[in-house]
């Protein structure tokens, strides 16, 4: 009995686990002892279960012909029919192409540009100008895609749009371009809008990583006669390699679930063939016309593919650079 109490006390103060023979009683004892910790965490864990894990149960709908009015037991099971239909739908491949194209562009540019921005910004050593640029660069991150959508339409307008006015003034074009009526331009517009919105924000982490680089490395390089551009390539960039790898893995994992907000806010009826992404497809062909089973099949496809991509990216990176997130 004495040993048990002692054991309880030590377990409470250090990470030492209880000896396996008395595990069960040790467990209940620790629950009582840590009742406040359980009270403070369990309700939220249940919350997470309801809102994040319970929807996974909804994946069963993908194998049913789900009818909202019926209970679970009464639903008709259809096997893989929904997936067969999905994979034989031409629209699906169009949507998949759009998703991969836009997330691929976003991955490449949305990844490279913030690194360049951070490295360049770092060259302005602690000046007022640097702080001003930084503060301004965060600004677009804090406004919604609704607002950004409005701004993009305004900037690209034929009459009084900043971009057309500038191009006309520079004599690059003779008459204004109807940017938002050209399906082929949509991927580019989405990519640039996203860069405009998030570059400053995404550079934060790189800037922080750069401040962690040993200052003596720069001093040594200077002695060796390396200019600042050389230092950027030989010290700054290698110095933040770990950060770069980790963020790359994460963004690959988010490739197919890249979101739909920007596409939703920037598109119009002329552009849907180039703007519809998987989530919007699920919205338009799943929820809006109440084909819930079909929509679930789309959602499931998206989730599974993104987890697979994440695992692949993580595994490849582990092999190549010994960096991984899991």
């Amino acid at each position: 009995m004495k040993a048990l109490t002692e054991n309880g006390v030590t377990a409470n103060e250090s990470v030492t686990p209880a000896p396996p023979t008395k595990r069960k009683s040790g467990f209940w004892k620790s629950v009582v002892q840590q009742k406040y910790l359980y009270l403070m965490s369990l309700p939220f864990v249940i919350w997470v279960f309801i809102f994040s894990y319970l929807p996974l149960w909804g994946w069963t709908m993908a194998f049913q012909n789900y009818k909202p009015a019926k209970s679970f037991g009464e639903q008709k099971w259809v096997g893989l029919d929904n997936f067969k239909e999905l994979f034989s739908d031409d629209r699906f491949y169009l949507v998949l192409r759009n998703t991969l194209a836009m997330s691929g562009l976003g991955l490449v540019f949305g990844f490279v540009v913030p690194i360049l921005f951070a490295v360049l910004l770092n060259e302005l050593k602690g000046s007022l100008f640097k702080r001003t640029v930084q503060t301004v660069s965060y600004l677009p991150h804090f406004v919604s895609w609704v607002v950004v959508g409005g701004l993009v339409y305004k900037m690209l307008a034929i009459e009084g749009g900043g971009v057309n006015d500038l191009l006309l003034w520079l004599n690059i074009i003779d008459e204004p371009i109807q940017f938002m009526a050209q399906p082929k331009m949509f991927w580019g517009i989405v990519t640039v809008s996203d860069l405009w919105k998030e570059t400053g924000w995404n550079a934060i982490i790189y800037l922080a990583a750069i401040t962690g680089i040993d200052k003596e490395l720069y001093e040594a390089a200077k002695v060796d006669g390396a200019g600042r551009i050389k230092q950027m390539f030989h010290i700054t960039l290698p110095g933040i390699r770990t950060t770069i790898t980790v963020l790359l893995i994460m963004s690959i994992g988010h490739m197919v679930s890249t979101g739909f907000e920007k596409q939703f806010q920037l598109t119009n009826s002329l552009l849907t063939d180039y703007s519809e992404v998987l989530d919007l497809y699920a919205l338009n062909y799943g929820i809006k016309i109440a084909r819930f089973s079909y929509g679930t099949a789309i959602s499931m496809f998206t989730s599974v593919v993104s987890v697979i991509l994440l695992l692949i990216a993580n595994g490849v990176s582990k092999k190549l650079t010994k960096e991984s997130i899991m």
Partner: protein
Amino acid sequence: MAAKAFELKKSERAFDIFLYIFLGIVMIVTLYPFLNVLAISFNDSTDTVRGGITIWPREWTLDNYKRIFSYTGLIQGFKVSVMRTVVGTLLGLISASMLAFTLSRPEFRARKLFSYFLILTMYFSGGMVPAYILMRDLNLIGTFWIYVLPGAVSAFNVFIIRSFMDGLPFALQESAKLDGANDFKIFYKIILPLCKPVLATVTLFLAVGQWNEWFTTYLYNGNKSHLTTLQYELMKVLATTNQGSGMTNSNDLANQMAQVSPESIKMAITIVVTVPILVVYPFLQKYFVSGMTLGAVKA
């Protein structure tokens, strides 16, 4: 030698000039759309049609703002947006700080289990349709609660706060424990006051997230006029000529207003939606920068 040093200096100077010009352009490109919209929102609406407004109004007026504030939908949307921002932020703060505290206690038995349980949510989601069905089954559609309940626990915020707590001296908690304080007391008497910087960060993330969110309104509450948010009202007004989002409804008040002088109205509402956040974020900059860094290190 001297010549080489001089050469180096010259190229350094050129690099500096390039940096200032380049980053200056970046700053202009970032700011111009906002300044342009601001100028138009204060410019006489018939004059705006003539075009050529850049960053300064030609004919100053407050009429655009007077007009949008006489539109009840906007006032209503403003109220709901403020409500969901306040309630959602509070809920998010309470849940994230409590969870973070328990997960930062090395002796907590369920620590590992709960941590993995949370981390997983950052990498997968059931998707839009199962979420929709769940909201329907929980009877949250068409209620205010759908804005604040589903997202109340965010793993990302939990881990930001936890990594901050991990950096606090553990001796503080130990001595309080010896004095007989229970875990909850240690949490709100000792730990929470020390966490102000990271709580400021998370507050900003939560508040901005709530304020900017529009899809929930669009998907679930669009037909409930007493539950629409400011973002949604802006969306409706913008959609009148963008023809985006397929949200055109000719009986809509927003639509009729936009017919009068679409450009100016749109710009004024854009400013109203944007300003609250723009006033706040520069002051929290040092907090969110460190918060993002903490989150990245852990995640």
